[in-house]
């Protein structure tokens, strides 16, 4: 590993280089004028497939009145994934960076269903019918999906049990070794050396508590 001096020189050099590079940002003005042509290589920020939008439409319920507040509608849109590749929910995507044409269309579908008197669960069910379960930001907590939710906690619980059992086993082994008067050590040391190490251990613990 580098010495302190080498470390300082390297760090200083990196900082100077980074600062210099950032200072360049505003200094390379290039002529830019409004152009009309298409992007030369068909570039988009995120590859957009217009066919990924599927209209979700249901006839309005008789005498329909909206049953969701704006806040509830926004919350609902947080649960529906935008069908574009942004991996954001509809609410978040429709005013973000991606100039997405799909999330506004999905938002309009949600508005239409809300105005048609549908509840949040019914609207979600309508979207799942049309797109499949992938349209939900998180899988529903049922069936095989439960494995997804339970597994991390099951793994942690299993790990905790194993760890506790291991610690207890270590504890018993340590106690037995001490009881027998033969404390197993990773190295072959004399009683005097062991005493010196033990003293150092005590010092360290006291230092830690100080």
């Amino acid at each position, binding site marked *: 590993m580098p010495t302190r001096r080498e470390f300082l020189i390297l760090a200083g050099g990196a900082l100077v280089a980074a600062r210099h590079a950032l200072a360049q940002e505003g200094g390379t003005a290039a002529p830019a004028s409004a152009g009309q042509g*298409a992007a030369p290589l068909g570039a988009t920020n995120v590859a957009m497939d217009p066919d990924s939008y599927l209209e979700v439409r249901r006839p309005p319920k008789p005498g329909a009145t909206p049953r969701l507040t704006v806040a509830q509608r926004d919350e609902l849109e947080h649960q529906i994934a935008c069908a574009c590749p942004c*991996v954001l929910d509809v609410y978040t995507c429709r*005013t973000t960076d991606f100039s997405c044409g799909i999330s506004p269309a999905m938002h309009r579908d949600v508005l239409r269903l809300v105005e048609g008197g549908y509840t949040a669960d019914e609207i979600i069910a309508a979207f799942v019918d049309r797109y499949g379960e992938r349209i939900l930001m998180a899988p529903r907590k049922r069936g095989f999906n439960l494995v997804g939710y339970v597994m991390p906690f099951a793994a942690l619980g299993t790990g905790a049990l194993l*760890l506790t059992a291991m610690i207890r086993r270590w504890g018993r082994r340590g106690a037995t070794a001490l009881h027998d008067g033969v404390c197993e050590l990773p190295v072959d040391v004399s009683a005097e050396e062991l005493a010196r190490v033990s003293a150092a251990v005590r010092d360290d613990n006291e230092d830690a508590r100080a």
Partner: protein
Amino acid sequence: MILIGELSLWVALLMAAWSATASFAGGYLRRDDLIASGERGVYATLAFVALASAGLWTAIITSDFSFKYVASFTSSNLPLVYKIAAFWGGQAGSMLFWCLILSGYAALAVFSTRTRNRELAPFVAGTLGVVSLFFLAATCFGANPYERLDWVPQDGRGMNPQLQNPGMAIHPPNLYLGYVATTVPFAFAIAALITRRLDGEWLAAVRRWALLSWFFLTVGITLGMWWAYVELGWGGYWAWDPVENASLLPWLTGTAFLHSIMIQEKRGMLRKWNVTLVATTFFLSIFGTFITRSGIIESVHSFAQSPVGNWFAGFLVVAIVATGILVSRRLKDLETTATLESMLSREAAFLYNNLVLMGIAFSVLWGTLFPIISEAVRGTKITVGPPFFNTVNIPLGLLLLGLTGVGPLIAWRRASMPNLKRQFAVPVASGLTTGAMLVALGMRDAYALVAYTLAGFVTGTIVQEFVKGTGARRRMHGEGVVVALGRLIARNRRRYGGYIVHMGIVVLFSAFAGLAFKTEHDVTLAPGEMFEVRDPYGHQWRFVSQGISRDAKLNRIITAIGLEATRDGKPVAIVTSEKRQHVDSRGFPTFEPSTEVGILESAQQDVYIVLAGVIADETAEIRISFNPLVWWVWFGGGIMAFGGLIVMWPSARRERTQSGYVAVMRSEAEIVAAAR
């Protein structure tokens, strides 16, 4: 220069192959000439990769569009800083960038073994050579930045606007520096396994490398969050995107290793576990790269789908199998006879800390892969987004935060009840007081309350540790508070630097909890119209539209809205949010319009304004969000990085005497020597 660079890439490949072969052969045959040649091969690899990199940078800066990479990721009017950053902005360039960092680290690691760890040195050089060989081969054959086009376009496609941000110029290199640094501890672990020198020696050698990796990953992740927040415009900084998760995974296992290494250093325990953690961290960094580059999982951050993903999948499988076989053949050597004396000991606390860190790592990995698993099992595609990860990880994260405060309060080996009572009194009181105050102030969000209560507890722990340490120094040496505090940290950098990192974690979690109180508002404003709203703190805000402006600047056409913001009747600022249409040097649009967020930043909250679009008559659609405590995310990340720097700051050349047996646990041989 470009031609030299192109040729150098292939020579570097040969050099890596030679350094791997000669080093392993030299190590097994114990031939010093081969070992030395292998080491020189590592240095030569660095030299040729550096030449290859210089060649690519030259091609980019001189806008040589005969190269597919240059034409795909730059344009002639791209600002210089982003031309430099374009080196790692695309698949092939970033592969070469990875090779550059890897060969640099390899040379540094080999250089560091010229006087130490000579038994390990050939196998360290050999392992690094093999990994370098893989990356260089994947670059040469899978994603070569020197691939030429059949024709030379007039201008390049330009850089994705979202990448034209200082955060993007800085955060990938930091992440790469972190990812790649995991290779060196892995190489030392492999060398230790091969040579059966599995005592403390290899651990002492890799600790700083593990810290270096952790430091850069911390900085890279924090900068990545900042970039996402200021550039992507969705109002958050962490979306549990697969590529974000991929950067978090090695950070989590690396953090677990930095804790468990202390148990091996102090007690000689956890040898198998530490080898496993080092290897897992390396595998996860490769796995992250595989996710980013294979296109196997959808992500806004990932590179385009590429066959190079298959290379990574193959390498990952081979590396895991080879390491597994090696570890299984050394299980006896990895046995330890030291024992844990009590569940109430710092060792046990560290083990539980490891358990939770690994639990979080598992849940992140599981969530990332669950769409693939679900599709394989049920044939149904699902999305696993933030709601899933928050459901699973918030409780685990809070558990981890609690353990952050518990560990330092418990003595090594065995803690007595009186000792525990004495140690826990102040931190527990601090936590409970914090929680009670927040309830009294009207906070009702359960997770936030638990988070702030735990934050109060951990802060109490850290402050207590510093106060006790400083007090002890003052009593022993008669120093003033500032001098005592400075020397306390300087002479015990690992411990107190670690506490500073813990403080950063506290700040970070407190900031995360602040998002529970985030509010968002969608408004449509014509020039002169206003919108009034109350923020989460109860302040009354008014935003008045100053109208839309249009301007051409650098390589973009800007549509901007200015909002005059007043808080409780007092003018605060005019906040501007932009839509940018990037164009090439001929003025043709290159990408879809992107958003430049207007942020009114303060320690209390960010007012986050996004211009969503402009409709007729200069009427703007705007989203206004109040994001509490976001500034503290960056500050917390900074504290963590600062703490990490303190921990890994190189010692002066003199050998400092550590307290107790800590210093002599580097190797068993040294223990015996020291004891005698």
